């Protein structure tokens, strides 16, 4: 077992405190006894795991095993569950805004307005999070291979290109926790390889990535969270 060790800087709540806070290694996100039912069927129960900083975890399982549901629960989009979710040791429900500031979720649906250009889309999604200059946004779009498309309405882009617009957020993200649900859909092989490298780099920087995909990921030290029928195993 090779668990990358990691540390988390706690946010500096006390503005008056001038010395740096002690560095404490602890899980970013903890799930304790999660249970989820859908249409009278139990998707999973007694599901407990920790997401440590510096890790990439792949959520695996057959179709219908609840991968997407799990990610939506973790992101706070789905609230039909029982159990405890903790962000840096404290219940997520009590620190929702702090959690949302530090979590980046990309879902099945790319979250891109077809009528807006890639740049406008990125601007709109960052408007509620933190100020990012247009230069940085353009750079991120170039980084995803969309140079020259910055001002083309997204509906004129291919599915893979639209997905890349959404993925451009990863290049400017400062959120330590990434929840990525089937983000490789419609992405070509080169793109997948580049994104893999990006995830690994993020983990090396101390971030944590949770990803569902049907692509084979070639990441060393990848954790696996396996959802199955009736039982859940956490394999490293």
């Amino acid at each position, binding site marked *: 077992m090779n668990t990358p060790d990691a540390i988390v800087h706690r946010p500096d709540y006390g503005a008056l405190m001038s010395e740096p806070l002690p560095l404490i290694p602890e899980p970013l996100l903890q799930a304790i006894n999660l249970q989820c039912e859908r249409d009278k069927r139990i998707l999973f129960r007694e599901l407990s795991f920790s997401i440590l900083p510096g890790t990439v975890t792949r959520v695996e399982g*057959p*179709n*219908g*095993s609840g991968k997407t549901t799990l990610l939506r629960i973790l992101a706070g989009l789905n609230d039909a569950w029982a159990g405890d979710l903790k962000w840096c040791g404290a219940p997520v429900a009590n620190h929702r805004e702090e959690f949302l500031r530090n979590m980046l979720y990309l879902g099945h649906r790319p979250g891109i307005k077809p009528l807006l250009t890639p740049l406008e889309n990125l601007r709109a999604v960052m408007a509620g999070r933190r100020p990012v200059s247009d230069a940085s946004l353009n750079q991120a779009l170039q980084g995803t291979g969309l140079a020259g498309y910055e001002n083309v309405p997204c509906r004129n882009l291919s599915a893979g290109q639209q997905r890349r617009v959404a993925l451009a957020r990863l290049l400017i993200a400062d959120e330590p926790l990434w929840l990525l649900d089937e983000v490789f859909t419609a992405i070509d092989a080169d793109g997948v390889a580049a994104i893999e490298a990006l995830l690994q780099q993020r983990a090396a920087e101390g971030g944590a990535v949770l990803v569902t995909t049907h692509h084979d990921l070639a990441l060393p030290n990848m954790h696996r969270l396996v959802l*199955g*029928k*009736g039982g859940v195993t956490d394999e490293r």
Partner: protein
Amino acid sequence: MAFDSFSAFISMEGHGPYVWACYAVFFVLMAVLMAGSLRSRKAMVESCRRGYEFQAAKGKVASAPASSASFARVNVSQD
């Protein structure tokens, strides 16, 4: 008794049809509602019982996991 005779009671000085129509509709609807509620409760109990018996007969075999899919082509028969 506010009425002199049974026929007076029925006719209610001409207001009988209105009064009796109201009471009839009230009692019929309430009866339908009550009987319907009881019936659907009975039906639910029955369907639960059948479900349990079906389960018991079938043993522990639950629905097939997705991994059991073979995607083999089906020989279509016509009858």
